[in-house]
């Protein structure tokens, strides 16, 4: 589903990604953990070219993402993204937030888009908030709407960039539950997270990222219970 070969990203002289290789299968849930500044978010943002990779190759669903000929807008339709700070559109209601991209990008009729949006709102349990503006929603509700907004494009892959890091602790669960449901339904997901419980429970594979490299990867059991590297162990001991 996703193939990454020798991906490098430099900001000026600072090398943030130092040759990443990665292969994600369909329906796989990959969790990326690691200290801040290790390049987790940058890696994720390269996958839909919100960051321009310096070199390397990315292929998603057999479509090349990198290279001059790549149609970025087409790839982004297949790759949903959820941001740490939600980034809902404040001038639109929850329903309109979800409807906009299907209408403007997928060229669905207003009626079709509304059906998609209402179905998704029901799924995330926010049907009664459909006419609310983002400001009127709690952080957890906003993030659930943001997930629904991405899902409305019927993407093949979902990228989550620390989706619970700016949430109050008591609403983290409701967002993780939506993500768990999604994983169970077979969505291919890459999740950058600090929620080790989620990574352990839902992740098919956990990658420990450090200093621009994938230092160690394996099943949650291997990474959390039997890490090979001292760096991984040190990180986990601090965070668990």
């Amino acid at each position, binding site marked *: 589903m996703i193939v990454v070969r020798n991906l490098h990203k430099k900001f000026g002289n600072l090398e943030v990604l130092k040759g990443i290789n990665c292969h994600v299968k369909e329906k796989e849930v990959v969790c990326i953990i690691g200290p801040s500044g290790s390049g987790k978010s940058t890696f994720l943002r390269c996958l839909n070219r919100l960051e321009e990779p310096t070199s390397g190759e990315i292929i998603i669903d057999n479509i090349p993402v990198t290279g001059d000929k790549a149609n970025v*807008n*087409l790839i982004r339709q297949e790759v*949903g*993204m959820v*941001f740490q700070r939600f980034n809902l*559109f404040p001038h639109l209601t929850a329903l309109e937030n979800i409807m906009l*991209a299907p209408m*403007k990008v997928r060229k669905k009729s207003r009626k079709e888009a509304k059906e998609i949006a209402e179905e998704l709102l029901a799924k995330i349990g926010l049907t009664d908030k459909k006419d609310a503006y983002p*400001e009127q929603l709690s952080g957890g509700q906003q993030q659930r709407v943001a997930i629904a907004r*991405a899902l409305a494009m019927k993407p093949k892959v979902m990228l989550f960039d620390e989706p619970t890091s700016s949430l109050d602790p008591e609403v983290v669960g409701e967002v993780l539950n939506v993500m768990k449901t999604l994983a169970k339904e077979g969505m291919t997901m890459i999740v950058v997270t600090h929620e080790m419980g989620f990574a352990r429970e839902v992740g098919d594979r956990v990658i420990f990222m450090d200093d621009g490299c994938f230092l160690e990867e394996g099943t949650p059991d291997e990474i959390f219970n039997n890490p090979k590297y001292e760096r991984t162990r040190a990180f986990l001991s601090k965070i668990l």
Partner: protein
Amino acid sequence: MRWDFIIEIFPKLLRASVLTLELTIAGISIGIVIGLIASLMRISGIKLFSVIAKIYVDFFRGTPLLVQIAIIHYALPVIFDYVPVAIVSGVIALGINSGAYVAEIFRAGIQSIDKGQMEAARSLGMTWGQAMRYIILPQAFKVSIPPLGNEFIALLKDSSLVSIIAVEELMTTGRLIMGKTPLVAEIWFSVAMLYLVMTSTIAVLVNYVERRLQIGDSSQKSA
């Protein structure tokens, strides 16, 4: 004060005020269109476009409107050999001049929108143009309303400058009446009052629109 004289010239001044208002509205309308285009060119990331937009903005903000009016009404007709019409020259001068200020207002408005908004829109597969149109500009426009109101008021006052090319708006009409009577104070205080009434009315209207838009923002509703 000769109140009877004021009452006598009042209808004439009122008609001239209508022309002042029309000139200003035409000017700001052109200004908004040009300003929108120039601000988008400026932030487009395309070097040629942004340089052209910057030169335009710098020229029209950096030279006096009075000189711009003279260039448009006197200099350009000589260069391109045509007969200028005063009111057209006036509207064009006001429009191009305000466009430069409006461009900066929109640019500031667009840049004040969190960059996560553009990223979220693009991540959904929208093109830059779609993201601008549906996500960034509606928000930027709302932020821009108070400074646009100020620009409208400034332009209304600056429209008095077109009196040098004899467009018969409020200022010119005042001068024409002055030529026929010694009652100078009556004329100019009346003219000033009419300008004041127009600018105050616009200020109230802008305020009203601003408050109405905030309701859509929901901050009032949830309170």
